[in-house]
């Protein structure tokens, strides 16, 4: 951009002239902005120059986990497991209901329950969450009720979002979970700004910001990582690398060592974890959180996982990946892995499993039936919350629709909407 180039030129001309010479005659480089050394060897730096970042894990193949350091109590472990199972049950029912045309859209979480639950369990409610859309388990762990999920998907009058967004675009002020929006990655620089505000208010809290491997390709990801590092923001960037962005495999998304390798390039402390290992995710997030808050600096976590379900209800993933591949990952599903661990500890058994599934299924179905019966908000809500106060031009448009409905109301689904004075 011209103005910026001009400005650079001015700054350069103001620099002492000797700096350029220094950089060629001294033994140590004097260039601004890097700390490095000279070399006589002409050689590319590339992915062969260093080892890929290893994947941290705790849960070994069934029965072999030796986790002396992991100090989670039985109650927390069980709560985590409940969460993982519940999200799966809710997914199943809502997915089917979309298939029957009862809700317009849905996105499941299968395969990523450990990513969501493990990270959520390591946070407090003071920590602010910015999510993409496949993080329902985080919200559930923080206390969002099944009825709240379903009311949002139906857009009935109990939905806090007043039926304005597509299903699965959840949000909760009380649970510090910022409302989801469809544009990918926009939440990343926003989360950095929120983290900066947290740092200034000196609350003992951080921001966690979830995004997928595909979203990491957006310009906003670059913006966010760079801003977080240069402005020292207490934020955990949490990437769910599940192998696909809709139909696009990661091989067509990036050529480097995944998303994690980008972290150090921005000066960000980075971890890569087994996203199907709920304990590893938990520990990594806990470690990151402490670091963020104590040091007021960002952390990047890349959780390796696999998207077992379709991208969404508008997608049939067998069009671009094999049924065998999906089946293989299903075998190592994070919920199954964690269940083995709990059974080995002796804090879970077959009977409890059956009871949990039965009760959560019944609860979800009854909530679902209730939500379906509830009317949608008044049509007037279409016009509210555009601004803090409704400006006169919007008021006029609302009145215009009102008088239109007086005459043509029979052509509109007014019966399924609430009355408002």
């Amino acid at each position, binding site marked *: *951009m*011209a*103005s*910026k180039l*001009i*400005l650079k*030129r*001015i700054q350069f001309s*103001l620099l002492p002239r000797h700096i350029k010479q220094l950089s060629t005659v001294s033994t140590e480089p004097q260039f601004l902005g890097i700390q490095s050394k000279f070399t006589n060897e002409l050689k590319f730096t590339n992915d062969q120059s260093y080892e890929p970042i290893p994947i941290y894990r705790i849960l070994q193949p069934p029965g072999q986990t030796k986790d002396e350091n992991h100090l989670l109590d039985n109650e927390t472990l069980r709560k985590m497991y409940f969460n993982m199972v519940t999200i799966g049950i809710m997914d199943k029912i809502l997915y089917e209901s979309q298939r029957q045309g009862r809700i317009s859209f849905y996105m499941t979480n299968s395969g990523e329950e450990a990513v969501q639950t493990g990270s959520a369990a390591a946070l407090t409610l003071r920590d*602010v969450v*910015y999510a993409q859309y496949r993080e329902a388990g985080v919200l559930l762990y923080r206390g969002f009720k099944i009825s709240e999920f379903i009311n949002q998907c139906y857009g009935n009058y109990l*939905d*806090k*979002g*007043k039926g*304005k*967004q597509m299903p699965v*675009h959840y*949000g*909760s*002020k009380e649970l510090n979970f*910022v*409302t989801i*929006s469809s*544009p990918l990655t*926009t939440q*990343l*620089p*926003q*989360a*950095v*700004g*929120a*983290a*900066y*505000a*947290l740092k*200034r*208010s000196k609350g003992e809290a951080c921001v966690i910001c979830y995004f997928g491997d595909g979203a990491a390709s957006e*310009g*906003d990801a*670059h*913006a*966010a990582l*760079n*801003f977080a590092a*240069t*402005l020292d923001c207490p934020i955990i960037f949490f990437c769910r690398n599940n192998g696909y962005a809709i139909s696009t495999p990661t091989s067509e998304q990036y050529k480097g060592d995944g998303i994690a390798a980008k972290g150090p390039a921005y000066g960000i402390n980075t971890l890569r974890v087994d996203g199907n290992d709920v304990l590893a995710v938990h520990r990594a997030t806990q470690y990151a959180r402490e670091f963020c808050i104590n040091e007021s600096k960002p952390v990047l976590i890349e959780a390796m996982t696999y998207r077992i379900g379709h991208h969404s209800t508008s997608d049939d993933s067998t069009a671009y990946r094999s049924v065998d591949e999906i089946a293989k990952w299903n075998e190592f599903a994070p919920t199954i892995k964690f269940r083995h661990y709990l059974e080995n500890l002796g804090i879970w058994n077959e009977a409890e499993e059956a009871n949990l599934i039965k009760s959560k299924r019944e609860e979800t179905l009854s909530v679902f039936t209730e939500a379906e019966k509830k009317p949608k908000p008044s049509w007037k*809500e279409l016009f*509210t*919350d*555009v*601004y*803090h106060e409704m*400006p*006169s*031009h*919007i008021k006029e448009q609302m009145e215009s629709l009102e008088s239109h409905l007086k005459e043509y109301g029979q052509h509109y689904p007014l019966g399924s909407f609430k009355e408002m004075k």
Partner: protein
Amino acid sequence: MILSKLCARLRITATPFIPPCLELEKNVTRNMHFTYVPDKELQTNVETKRLNMYQAINDALRLAMEKDSTAVIFGEDVAFGGVFRCTMELQKKFGADRVFNTPLCEQGIAGFGIGLANQGATAIAEIQFADYIFPAFDQLVNEAAKVRYRSGGTFDCGKLTVRAPSGAVGHGALYHSQSPEAYFAHTPGLKVVVPRGPRQAKGLLLSCIEEPDPCIVFEPKVLYRSAVENVPLNFYKTPIGKAEILREGKDVTLIGWGTQVHVLQEVADMAQEKLGVSCEVIDLVSILPWDISTVCQSVRKTGRVIISHEAPMTCGFGSEIAASIQERCFLHLEAPVGRVTGWDTPFPHVFEPFYIPNKWRCFSSVKKIVNF
């Protein structure tokens, strides 16, 4: 020339679109396409000071920062005072955690500001030129504008204000001259204002900073130094959404905003002098929401109207005003609604004198419309 001014000149003159310093102001003004008309003197006891527009903006920012400890100012090169000097001395006064440079990335600046505002902090972001606001378009249009609506009012980013220098400057060419207000006027959820001088710039900026909705202020950069007037030193606000009638008239209504308001005031003089035509000049001030009632009231009185802006004609904000006027004032119109705007081309370098809707083009339009 005193030393400090010389230094300032050395640092700044390489940026060719800034009039070098106040001493040269008159020479520069002669080459400009408008003559700045200061606001009427205030009849109050409030203490005032002669300030140019960047100084008035600087004063507003200082007052906002003093009043609200959550307020932060950020953008490219704001720490040393800004390439247009609007943030001079603020980092020294308020500290590096409240006035700071960001990496060079507009989408990051806008997104970062939304996040701050989500947390209830007052975020005052600067985009170095309005021409470079487009990388932030997604953040502003899809995000900032819709946070409140999509969350049913549970979240908002009302405390976000984005400032961006805009408009023609004599030689800014394609990317230092644009007036992108119409792009944003099509975005429910945003508020967009354009000041015409120092006093209004200060009041509008303070309003935007305190407004519970995200606001964009497009500051006509040609006025930063060339517009000088007495500015009250206290904290005051100029209402958003209200147009101002700068001079009353009965034959033709002239509507503009920003720098163009000064062109139109001169046109009103010319029309009076050469044609004996009395023009009513309206500064729209606020593009979104805009003051339809003040405009229509004036048009019902005069029966003739010309809208003028620097931005291109097709889908410029003039189109919205023209359509609304014909809808609401049909029986009062004595002539078609006129639009005098930039041409439907990119903003050119050496052809700028032929591109801008200057006083001669506006005057010619007035002549046509009264003879219709």
